[in-house]
């Protein structure tokens, strides 16, 4: 193997190598890091970011962006919690509709897909840049959350619901199962399906894709809807773990999510990147967060370090793509 090929192979695994080095480093400095309890803890913590980031990856692969994921997460969590706890009362008709656990969750997911579709609709129909369209949705969905919750948390949602965020199944935390399934489905979509191919093609060259007969609008709508649904999945997991839907849940989650995508090697201009890269990115951020806490680093420094890691990842990525 020549040096160039060797480098190319190395660059494929560099996030993985970085992660392993990070883990070795932290475990040398803290004996609490490499324990089973802490490992599950970290994985549980990152599963929400993984769900959101998987959707974000698909959006970014089409050379879009979704800034609304945090707000959509809060809204969908609140919808599910509200329906579960209070149902819907129609004052005039003296009507009350109660919701089962499954019903409330499905409506929460539906809400996420609708908000995502709305993003896709404004982006494709009115040609609004995704940055602006989803920035508007960031505010709209947060406002809707406030309206729905009247600004108060919706808590005490029942043991069954709490199981989603806190429970275990076959010795593995349920959120890890959920995010794992999301990742597997997303890997299949991006690698094995026509939709996935179109996502890469549109991000690589939208004009050529349109002239090749790809229905660009349909693909984009689908991708933003997927991002919405996955935000809803995250919202339900967060709400369940806290046993409470907080009106200000998910604040600035879009930043952690974009960070995971970028650290994972996906190009912000679209067309290049992988779901597994993003998963690694999310794990690196999670491990870093956890490690810095275990090492008693001040929360202020934690932010500085995280920002530095994002910069470093992009610089290395740039250097690699130049070598291509």
């Amino acid at each position, binding site marked *: 193997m020549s040096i160039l090929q060797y480098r190319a192979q190395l660059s494929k695994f560099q996030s993985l190598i970085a992660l392993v080095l990070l883990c070795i480093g932290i475990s040398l400095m803290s004996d609490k890091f490499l324990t089973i309890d802490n490992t599950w803890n970290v994985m549980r913590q990152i599963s929400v970011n993984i769900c959101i980031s998987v959707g974000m990856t698909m959006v970014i692969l089409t050379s879009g962006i979704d800034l609304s994921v945090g707000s959509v997460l809060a809204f969908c969590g609140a919808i599910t919690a509200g329906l579960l706890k209070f149902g819907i009362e129609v004052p005039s008709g003296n009507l009350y509709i109660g919701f089962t656990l499954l019903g409330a969750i499905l409506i929460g997911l539906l809400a996420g897909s609708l908000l995502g579709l709305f993003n896709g609709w404004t982006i494709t129909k009115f040609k609004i840049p995704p940055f602006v369209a989803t920035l508007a949705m960031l505010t709209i969905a947060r406002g809707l959350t406030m309206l729905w919750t009247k600004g108060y948390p919706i808590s005490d949602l029942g043991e069954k619901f709490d199981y989603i965020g806190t429970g275990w199944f076959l010795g593995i935390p349920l959120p890890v199962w959920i995010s794992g399934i999301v990742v597997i489905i997303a890997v299949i979509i991006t690698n094995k399906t*026509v939709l*996935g*191919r179109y996502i*890469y*093609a549109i991000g690589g*060259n939208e004009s*050529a894709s*349109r002239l090749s*007969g790809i229905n660009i609008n349909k693909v984009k709508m689908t991708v933003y809807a997927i991002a919405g649904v996955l935000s809803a999945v995250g919202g339900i997991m967060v709400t369940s773990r806290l046993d409470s839907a907080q009106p200000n849940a998910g604040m600035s989650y879009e930043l952690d999510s974009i960070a995971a995508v970028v650290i994972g090697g996906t190009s912000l201009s679209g067309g*290049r990147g992988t779901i597994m890269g993003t998963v690694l990115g999310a794990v690196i951020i999670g491990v870093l967060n956890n490690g810095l806490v275990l090492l008693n680093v001040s929360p202020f420094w934690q932010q500085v370090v995280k920002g530095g890691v994002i910069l470093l990842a992009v610089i290395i990525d740039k250097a690699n793509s130049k070598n291509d």
Partner: protein
Amino acid sequence: MALENVSMQFPAGKVTAILGENGAGKSTLMKILSGVYPDYEGQVIYKGEVVCFKNPREAQNAGVAIIHQELNLIPYLSITENLFLGRELTNSWGMLDKSAMRGKAEELLKKLKLELAADTLIADLKVGQQQIVEIAKALLYDSEVIIMDEPTSAISESEANILFDIIVNLKAENKAVVYISHKLNELFKIADNYVVLRDGKTIESGEMAGMTHDALIHKMVGRDIDIARSNEETMDKQVLFDVANICLSISGKSVLNDISFSLYKGEILGIFGLMGAGRTELLETLLGTCDGTPQGIVTLDGKVVNFKSATQAIDAGLALVPEDRKKDGLVLGLDVKNNISLSSLHTTHRTGIINNQTEVGLAQKYISALKIKTPSEKQLVKNLSGGNQQKIVLAKCLATGPKVLMLDEPTRGIDINAKNEIYKLIAELAKDGLGIIMVSSELPEILAISDRILVMADGRITAEFKTAEATEDKILKAAIGEDI
């Protein structure tokens, strides 16, 4: 190694043409001369001294300017601001001396017969006008050696003529002009000397006077080329595609005006027109991807169709090989097989799951049928040469099983061997019963392979010829239109 033992001279007051197929080493040579590649063996002697330019700025300061094939202008800055980019004039306060720059820019635009205000934004210019601004930029340096890399590839005939006048003036001012072009006709018009490169070596150099087209082509490829097509095959005059009274206006401006024609099964219909004649707009309209709402009736295989998107058009049996393959034809970051299957995926994989074997099979079929030179179907398309890229666009279109194949400048920027292969393919496809519409601005190409020729000017069809009756003169006359 891109260049091997290349020697040539560029005398002052002469235009030296550099000829060669794509990949012959022309661009590499120009990059050495203009300081882009400072690491080379051998010597460059400029005004009697050995020089080695370390970067383009050094070359420019010494008086060697290059006009690149790709435009390097900033769209939302004015013509003046672009001309003076990086060497702005300042007053004694260190502020921009806008009036001095505008004055110089206006003077230059006048000299170049570009009738535009110097503070027009580049974004508001047509491509041809942008090219002239690019040329103005080189002239502003007061350069001694001016290298032009395919300067007429994007400009109209009349704009090209202005450029040729400028070149004549440059010669009179005793500058050395180096002119790279695929268009042999141009070279015969303006060049004094020629240098032929092939596979990174100088094959021959000499004076243009006394050379012929065929002799030059022969030197470039090292073998004779044959683009003649026997047009005599009896055609079963069955109308495949009929276009009646197509009109299109984009933001109030008429782009297409009452276009009507029929295309027969197995026919190659050539459409010739100068820049801005509406050729590309016509193809876009037929494919359903134009801006604006077109009027008129289009009939495909006896059925009236009204395509609103490329998706519908492709499903109905239309396919387009667009003019700009990198911008509109290919996803450069995807591999060969993904590009070939791109248009046909949704029909071959109705379940939505991609079958890898089917896809590889499709790719291999076209790689061998079209003789696409690639290490494998997994090679990224951006690593292939222009000719092979063009074949991939063609393969992508053929994979959809089209009835009508529309080609927009199918051989732009590809070397002569690849051109010939593409011509042969087009002829074979027509033989198989496809209807082919080929838009081209290269007269020899139109004349060689069309069965029938339409000429467009100002959004209208101004003439129709059977190929046997057509000559370059007749076609060009119709293309220039009555107005000029």
